[in-house]
């Protein structure tokens, strides 16, 4: 039992790294642009499907194939910003939610039309092995996905805290009007933050594809997970997102050992409800924030 729990803990930490990676796009867009991107998981899934297409269809190297997916995510982000989000800058939350709900449906439907609803499993090539550490057995792909997420989140954290552009983004997040007063081009910067968030979401999709089989229509599950991570971790810090992801990953794995698998969902949704009740305002010390 103890070994099983230890195994679950390690699995959970790795899974949690992936969760952090796929929630950070959501956290960024919410924290900086105040957009509740409910199309997030649809982007994740289309990223995962594109990745699957490159790896399984074209036989690309699973590590290299991440790069074009992230770049395509960035371009998609620029496009969506121009086409939809741009018009929503001064609109009410209701309007933004409606528009993004429509966007979610559009992306999901495109995914279903192009890739059908079959469950997809990534062809892992050389990442398919299992690391055997005595009593622990860890799939290589999971280590790679978690490692990339960890690295990306730390890089984002450094970018936001140590560079001038990062400071400008944080400025935009805390007060857009004042940020524009001191010479930050708010429109241009928010365009790129939006695109960056979508690129992160696309990366999250590739990390997801490395870890679990997926289908286009069950993406709402990943939306629930991503929001859980964001709500637990609060906005504005990539590192807290990572910690929240790890907490959820560990809870999920450990519960999965102790109870039948369907209870995992109940426990995590219960956790979501409790977190909502407890942290009703002030997320992670950001009391004045809109979400």
């Amino acid at each position, binding site marked *: 039992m103890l070994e099983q729990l230890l195994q679950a803990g390690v699995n959970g930490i790795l899974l949690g790294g992936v969760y952090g990676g796929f929630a950070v796009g959501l956290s960024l867009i919410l924290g900086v642009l105040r957009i*509740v991107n409910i199309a997030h998981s649809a982007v994740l899934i289309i990223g995962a499907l594109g990745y699957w297409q490159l790896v399984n269809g074209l036989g690309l190297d699973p590590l290299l194939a991440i790069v074009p997916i992230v770049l395509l995510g960035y371009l998609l982000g620029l496009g969506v910003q121009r086409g939809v989000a741009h*018009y929503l800058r*001064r609109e*009410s939350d209701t309007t933004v939610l409606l528009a993004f709900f429509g966007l979610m449906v559009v992306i999901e439907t495109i995914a279903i039309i192009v890739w059908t609803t079959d469950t997809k499993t990534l062809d892992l090539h050389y990442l398919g092995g299992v690391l055997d550490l005595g009593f622990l057995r860890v799939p290589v792909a999971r280590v790679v996905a978690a490692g990339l997420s960890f690295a990306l989140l730390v890089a984002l954290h450094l970018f936001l805290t140590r560079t001038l552009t990062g400071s400008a983004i944080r400025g935009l997040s805390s007060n857009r009007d004042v940020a524009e007063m001191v010479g930050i081009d708010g429109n241009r910067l928010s365009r790129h933050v939006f695109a960056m968030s979508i690129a992160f979401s696309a990366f999250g999709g590739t990390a997801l594809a490395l870890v679990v089989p997926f289908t286009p229509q069950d993406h709402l*599950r990943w*939306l629930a997970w991503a929001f859980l991570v964001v709500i637990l971790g609060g906005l504005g810090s990539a590192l807290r997102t990572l910690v929240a992801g790890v907490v959820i990953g560990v809870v999920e794995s450990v519960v999965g050992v102790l109870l039948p698998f369907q209870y995992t969902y109940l426990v995590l949704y219960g956790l979501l409800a409790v977190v909502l009740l407890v942290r009703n305002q002030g997320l992670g010390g950001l009391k004045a924030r809109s979400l």
Partner: protein
Amino acid sequence: MAERSGSPVVSEDIALAPAVAAASVRRRPWWIGPVIAAAIFAVLGVLGFTLALGSVTTLIVVLLYVTIAQGWNLLGGYGGYLNFGAAVLFGTGAYTAAVLNSSLKWGFFATLPLAAAGAVIVSLVIGIATLRLRSHYFAIFTLVLTFLAAVVVRNVPLFGGANGVYVAVPIDGNNRAITLFVFVTLLVLAIIATIVAWAVEHSRFGNALVAIKEDEPAAQVLGVRTTSVKLWALVIGAALAGAAGAVYAFQTGYIEPNGTFDVSLSLDIVLLCVVGGLGSWIGPLIGGVIVVVLQQWLRVAIPDISLFGVQLPAEASRLVLGVLLIVFALFARRGIVGFVVRRRGRSVTV
């Protein structure tokens, strides 16, 4: 003051709104709306008894959607709290009715109130967890709940798991009699729902909901008990959705988790209200007719279209509906009613 077409500059709009509205409002007589609604119901009723059986099924969908959407509109349209999980409340009603019927052999009219009660209980749990918070939380929570509902139902043996539940026919008789029975029941439900929506719009309760949408903290300061108002709106909507679910269960005779807890239904309900007009009691009625007719037409038309030599699958109709939602949200957020009726100068949305 037509719809602002996408322009983000609204400052002069706000400044002028009261003056322009005061100057240009020609008050329409109060009876115009009820007369239009009565006419729509009358036409639907007559069509139901005259058309072929296949077309009556379409009308049944219209009435089913109108019933749910009127309930949804209370919190979503007037209150600005979007419930993206209408399918959860609807499905709860459907499953309550189905299980009561298949395991306890309860009849149609006995299960109907209990189905509504079941949906109300679920809505209370959702509401207590999320309605004290800002509207995003509610929207997110209801959306992701669809997934949980399907998982729970699939794994509880009482609900038949992935195999679903079979439901007996509501009354004895031939096909046509059963269909007409369902049709009349839904017609009554839809009329009740519409009257409820009308009554809410013309009450302090409705005003409180609109105040919550406009500015929740301000409403609170002015003495609106925001949480309980929102909860009541959700509960009324849930009761209607649950009742509609029960009728659906008896109409189809068989329900299963994936088809019942389907985001498509939630989308349709939202779209109905947005196309018709959010926060207008007649909006869901007009939207219901338009959206369902459009949907049925797309379902027939799309398989005939081939793009680059590839047949478009049936899902493509959902694509059209999604795009429609984005377009209405961006450019016509008061829906079709908004084109016709001028809002009295009481509200300025930013």
